[in-house]
């Protein structure tokens, strides 16, 4: 099988710490790949580099055969992304957001309306297309972002915690859409999530990153076997420990919650 995404010794150094330490992995075309890790492990930094908005310190990324650093526009046209935090223009209508996306991704003018309609129908927002995004609920915004990421027919879709803060109904419906996209269109899915049950249910391949390094990867069965655990959640906790992490902590910044409290009260 071919790899749609291939990452070699990817490293990102910030001034005071190294967020990603030479990670390498491949994502097979047509698969669902879950990229898991505690807060501050380097997930978001990695996704930012994969999606060309952050320049790696070193390493190579190939998306759909294109070098993400040298053939940026070809690489960019190959993927869609749903960011962790919102990235919609709330002062525009849903349709206008979609249209903006279609134009900047150079979707042929004739196909634009059909594709926008199709994408909005997938997530059930076609009827609400004329509403301003600021009137949308959190779940609707997420669905709109997913619809938007489909307009340019990406080969691979990055989803950075797509279901965070959503109710179970919306989460279920979003995963159903994603699974359909994967099965019907053969779209590769690269996702991060903190809900281990979601990853367990949907992912073909899983990689767990901590302190900027991939500490375990493979199929669910393989990970459970390697760690001698019954579920992904157990495996995850066994691999990454039970300490609570700082959100933007990075490498050596982990700190026990109680110790943090003590430090604060002394000040």
């Amino acid at each position: 099988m071919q790899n749609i995404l291939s990452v070699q010794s990817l490293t990102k150094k910030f001034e005071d710490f190294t967020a990603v330490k030479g990670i390498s992995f491949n994502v097979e075309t047509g698969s669902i790949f879950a990229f898991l890790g505690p807060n501050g492990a380097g997930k978001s930094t990695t996704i930012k580099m994969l999606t060309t908005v952050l320049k790696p310190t070193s390493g190579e990324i190939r998306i759909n055969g294109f070098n993400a650093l040298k053939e940026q526009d070809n690489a960019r046209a190959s993927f869609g992304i749903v960011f962790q935090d919102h990235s919609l223009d709330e002062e525009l209508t849903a349709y206008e957001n979609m249209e903006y996306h279609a134009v900047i991704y150079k979707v042929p003018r004739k196909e634009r309306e059909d594709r926008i309609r199709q994408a909005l129908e997938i997530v059930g927002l076609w009827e609400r297309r004329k509403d301003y995004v600021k009137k949308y609920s959190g779940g609707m915004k997420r669905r709109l972002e997913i619809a938007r990421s489909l307009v340019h027919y990406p080969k691979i879709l990055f989803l950075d915690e797509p279901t965070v803060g959503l109710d179970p109904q919306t989460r279920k419906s979003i995963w159903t859409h994603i699974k359909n996209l994967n099965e019907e269109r053969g779209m590769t899915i690269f996702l991060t999530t903190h809900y281990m049950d979601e990853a367990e249910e949907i992912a073909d391949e899983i990689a767990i990153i901590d302190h900027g390094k991939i500490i375990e990867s493979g199929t669910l069965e393989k990970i459970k076997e390697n760690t001698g655990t019954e579920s992904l959640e157990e495996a995850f906790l066994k691999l990454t420990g039970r300490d609570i992490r700082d959100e933007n902590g990075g490498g050596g910044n982990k700190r026990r919650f109680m110790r943090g409290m003590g430090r604060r009260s002394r000040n």
Partner: protein
Amino acid sequence: MIEVIYILWLRQLKHYWRSKARLIGSLGQPLLFMVAFGFGFGPMYTKASGGANYMDFLAPGIISMSILFTAVFSGLEVIWDRQFGFLKETLVAPISRTEIMVGKTLGGATIAMIQGLIVLSLTYVLGFRISSLASLGFGLIFMSLIAIFFTGLGLAIASKMKDMHGFQLIMNFLIMPIFFLSGALFPLENLPPAIYFISRIDPLTYGVDGLRGVLVGMSTFSIYSDLAVIGALSALVCAIGALLFSKLEA
């Protein structure tokens, strides 16, 4: 390419048009300046200059002021885009950073031009008259160059700012001095050396001088050198902006 620039431009115009409060609110300041300075200093100016009308002197300055502020604000809007996450959407798209810069510059400059034209019509109500249709045409050229330069400047600054915390700093130590020392309110003659020097390196000086030159026939420098300076500066700031945008990370 043209379509990409157009959709970026259109988005900014939609924002402007939909926020009526901002549209109307930003007319308050030029109006206040015109009334307060125009009627307050008018008699003094007439006396000192031996009969000239202060409104003729002031109106091009106030038009420039409204363009300056609207343009800089439009440029700085990129910081909001960054904070609300929308900037990422544009940055991951397969378009060149130059297209983004050009689209945003034209969008901001168009809004600043509209604002300038509204203020121009307000000055008409307060008794300001332009000598001919041709001078209005030349005036529009100067207005658009002022608009492009300051939108570009706002964008260049915004590309280096992560949030709005530095906003007051930019306003009070850059934009306000640019306005007050540009000759928009008072003639740039017989000034102390320090102020004289600053006014000569102030880009708006040449914009205001040129605009005043073509609209009412009063100027310190020749209109052509004004045009050359503000034109060259606009090109330069756009080039710098494009360079800064090419390094933009989300």
